[in-house]
């Protein structure tokens, strides 16, 4: 594949490549792998609910969600079990936006129910909001993330959820038994 760039840009590009080649260390793959195998997996957030507040998603504004289809408001702060969550007002209903790192479901289990717009925080895949299986969308909604989204602690995973009421308990079937990151009521 050939891409056209200006002469000056090509020179700058080569300088960057030389800089990267000169500075970046060459590593022995075996050493890299042995270091990983010798280290236990990271579980930085063993918290009740296994959920973490998403403070960076301060400015999520729900534009329309399917049949709810109303304009949302800025999130309001809430505390649940010692964890700060950011409430999302959705058609007059406030949801908590939460990270669910180890939740286990496939994209085939999601049904689009509307659109959301956000101007900060995590990068979502498109603007669609999903219902998960037959879980009541009044209690649980799902946003798909672009790959590799991180918060301060670890990778966020492929999804974040909007939850209200007893929505957390409805998510229990989607965690592996004994998962330390599952909501505490799933134990």
């Amino acid at each position, binding site marked *: 594949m050939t891409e056209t760039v200006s002469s000056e840009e090509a020179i700058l590009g080569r300088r960057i*490549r030389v*800089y990267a080649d000169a*500075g970046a260390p060459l*590593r022995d793959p075996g050493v*890299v792998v042995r270091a990983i195998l010798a280290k236990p997996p990271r579980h930085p957030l063993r918290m009740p609910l296994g959920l973490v507040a998403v403070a960076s998603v301060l400015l999520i504004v729900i534009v329309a969600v399917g049949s709810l289809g109303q304009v949302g408001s800025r999130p309001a702060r809430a505390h649940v079990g010692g964890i700060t969550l950011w409430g999302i007002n959705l058609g007059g209903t406030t949801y908590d936006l939460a990270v669910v790192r180890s939740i286990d479901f496939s994209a085939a289990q999601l049904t689009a129910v509307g659109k959301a717009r956000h101007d900060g925080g995590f990068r979502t895949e498109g603007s669609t909001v999903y219902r998960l299986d037959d879980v009541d969308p009044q209690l649980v909604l799902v946003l798909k993330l672009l*790959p590799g989204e991180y918060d301060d602690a670890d990778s966020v995973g492929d999804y974040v959820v909007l939850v209200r009421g007893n929505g957390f308990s409805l998510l229990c079937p989607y965690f592996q038994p004994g998962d330390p990151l599952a909501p505490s009521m799933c134990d």
Partner: protein
Amino acid sequence: MGVTDQPPLAVTRISQTMKRLRSGEHLLDMDATPEVSMPEPVAMLAAVREHNQAAFTQLVASLDGELVRLAYVITGSRHGAEDAAQAAWERLWHKPPRLREPAKLRLWLLTVCANEARQVGRRQRRGAQLEAKAVSASGPKAERADDLADLRVALGCLSGPERELLALRFAVGLPSAEIAEHLGLSPEGARTRLHRVLQRLRQELSHD
């Protein structure tokens, strides 16, 4: 097959290429540096899920260089680059992603590594500056070392996402289409952003 006055397609392309070169454009052939012969990603991801160490080592061998270069341009630090790349590999090994398109494993790794590098870069900013001074003062080829040190300082004036864009394009060699996908932009939007970042870098270099 009849004879036509049209030149063969290959000749036309060569002619167009020469014209563009004469007009001052350079052609950056992305296939000219095919350092990455990545193993088949779908099978590789499945093998990693089964904790197949041989497959994982093969994947590290094929892509670690890219990850470290990417992270180095973002962090400006060797240690930071190693930490970021290592974190990406750890993430893959301990919690392999459920990619809707497993073929995009490489892009996923680059994204995770870039995110790690931005975090590492913020934590180690001071260390990176010290390292830049050391390279500038003690490089065996002083002129080249100074050039690299200038570039490092100029890159340090850019934002993390700007350095990430340059790193993906030039240190890793991703084409604009894949960068666009990474950034959630159109290919044209990615090219425009790249052009602007290069302009900024040029300005920073001219200040030195």
